[in-house]
């Protein structure tokens, strides 16, 4: 019994660690979509963030500088999407795919020299100020800082979105640009901020993956995590609180994949590797059912882009 509990707890921690990069992207993308813009380029931003973060950490030896550089790289690449969509009025999906390809290409091109480098990864929170916090300290100890930051981002985003006036205008931009404009607010400003925030979070997610979780850089290492995240935003109903269980879904399926292999289950690892895609996709199917019945909180401005033909 005790064995079982420990196993479950380690599985949960593993799921949380593997879910963190996805969670960060879900949070960022949910904020972007709340303003009525969808950005498929998060996958590319994540890759560029991972590569930049890893490279900077490797060169300077400071993983935190890597994290900051990764965030900047994410924002910079997301601005390509902003210019195409807001500046030129290009199709959002096509622009997202362009950013996706560009991010993949740039990270592969400039990342080649760093393949196989060793870096000081961000350690866990044991023996930091966190351990001195009574009660919580012991629990948070084994967690790494990117996990903690991402978890703290949930209430922060929620307060911003639902408790501040700027957050209110942000949401109303996503519901209707025209009405927002009629009320005297400039929707483009909020959409620009939203795309940049999505860039920040996806760059951070890349760092969480390369500088923290794996401490490694491999070409194309995000393996579709950014795209899974775009799907999970729908599962999370554009709500930062629901983003956690949605991302854990991915984390759990990945952790389960590794766990099943370590238990020696006789299924091909390649089939197991489809789980992190199949499980979110299945939940997405169920989720859409509810979305259809209730409207599900999809920002109305997004519906135009998202369900373009319906």
């Amino acid at each position, binding site marked *: 019994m005790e064995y079982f509990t420990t196993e479950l707890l380690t599985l949960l921690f593993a799921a949380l660690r593997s879910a963190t990069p996805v969670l960060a992207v879900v949070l960022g993308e949910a904020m972007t979509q709340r303003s009525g813009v969808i950005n498929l380029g998060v996958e590319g931003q994540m890759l560029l963030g991972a590569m930049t973060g890893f490279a900077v950490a490797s060169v300077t030896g400071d993983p935190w500088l890597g994290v900051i550089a990764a965030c900047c790289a994410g924002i910079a690449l997301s601005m390509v999407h902003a210019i195409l969509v807001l500046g030129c009025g290009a*199709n959002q999906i096509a622009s997202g795919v362009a950013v996706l390809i560009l991010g993949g290409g740039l990270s592969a091109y400039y990342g080649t020299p760093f393949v196989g480098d060793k870096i000081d990864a961000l350690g866990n929170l044991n023996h930091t100020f966190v351990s001195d916090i009574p009660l919580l300290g012991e629990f948070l100890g084994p967690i790494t800082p990117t996990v903690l930051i991402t978890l703290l981002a949930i209430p922060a985003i929620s307060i911003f979105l639902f408790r501040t006036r700027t957050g209110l205008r942000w949401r109303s931009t996503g519901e209707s640009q025209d009405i927002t404009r009629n009320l005297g607010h400039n929707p483009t400003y909020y959409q620009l901020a939203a795309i940049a925030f999505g860039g920040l979070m996806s760059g951070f997610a890349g760092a969480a993956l390369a500088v923290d979780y794996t401490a490694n850089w491999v070409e194309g290492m995000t393996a579709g995590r950014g795209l899974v995240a775009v799907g999970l935003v729908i599962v999370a109903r554009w709500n930062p609180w629901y983003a956690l269980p949605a991302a854990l879904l991915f984390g759990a399926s990945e952790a389960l994949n590794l766990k099943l292999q370590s238990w020696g289950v006789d299924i091909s690892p390649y089939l197991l590797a489809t789980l992190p895609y199949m499980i979110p996709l299945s939940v997405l199917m169920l989720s859409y059912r509810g979305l259809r019945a209730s409207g599900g909180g999809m920002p109305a401005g997004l519906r135009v882009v998202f*369900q373009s033909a319906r």
Partner: protein
Amino acid sequence: MTSATQPVVKLGLQLLRGPAGAVLVMTAIFVVATLAFFAINGREAVSLFQEMVMGAFGDSYSFSETLVKTAPILLTALAVALPARLGLISVGGEGQLYLGALFGTGAVLAAVDQPGWILMPLMLAGSMAGGALWGVIPGLLKTRLGVNETISTLLLNYVGILLVSFVVHGPWKNPNSLGWPATIEFPAGAILPQFFDTRVHMGLVFGIVAAIVLHILVTRSRWGLGLQVSRSNPRVGATAGISYERNVLIVMAVGGLLAGLAGIAEASVIQNRLQDGLASGYGMTGFLVAWLAGQHFLRIIPLSVLMGGLLASADSLQLYAQLPKASADILQALLFIIVLAVASLWARRSNI
């Protein structure tokens, strides 16, 4: 200026304000961007650019390699453009291509002892069925559950690639291949016909014929009109008696089928077997070409050749100039960004 030349100049200016001008601007910006990219990375920009062009179209061998790359790009681009005519944004070319290769190979392995006239049609039918399956699934998810097709096709790409990895590492692995994960070599009866002693194969012909047939159907027929109407306003389509749901399944299936053909052609002619890393991003390139062509089937043909040239020259430059393979991705993305920006601005300007 003489009065005789004036109308000619006027006509020229008029053309420049239209799409011709846009194409000219796009080309100019792309050439400058490419040179800048080379220069930033410390290369001899102009000479590298020349080598690039030569690597694609310089001699008959390079051109044949360009055409080899053209075939899968053309087919996957059609797999994007046809659904786009109904307003669907499918990014599933990659997965459909892998599934086509998977099912086609399955047919070959199942009938490996049969003569070519049985084996070949079986293989092609299998690949078309596989690709169509990977198209119909997102189609069904869309019509039955309302799942956005862009997201489902993107996720299914990864699943398709992993399924191929599964069979080549597992059940279909050639026992004599030592560590190398691949199926047995295809028998001669399962190799698609090639032309003029090069690797240029039937897949290219399939693509060109499909592009022409689709063009005629979509622009001239009642069915094509139905697609246009549903795309523009599905509610109006429904009132006129056009089934949006059925058309979604048809365009996704036909698109998938074409991408599936690309997959089996790669496996059969280029690799002679099914193995990992079959397609190296043709699906995404196809998506890009379809958008560059404005989802216009006939324009896809020359653009596929151009893009095939870019990929072929990147391959040769990788060998001779140590230019990383990723530069092809970067240049593709730059081209896409430039075209999107210029085309959108051009459209906005002409609306005023």
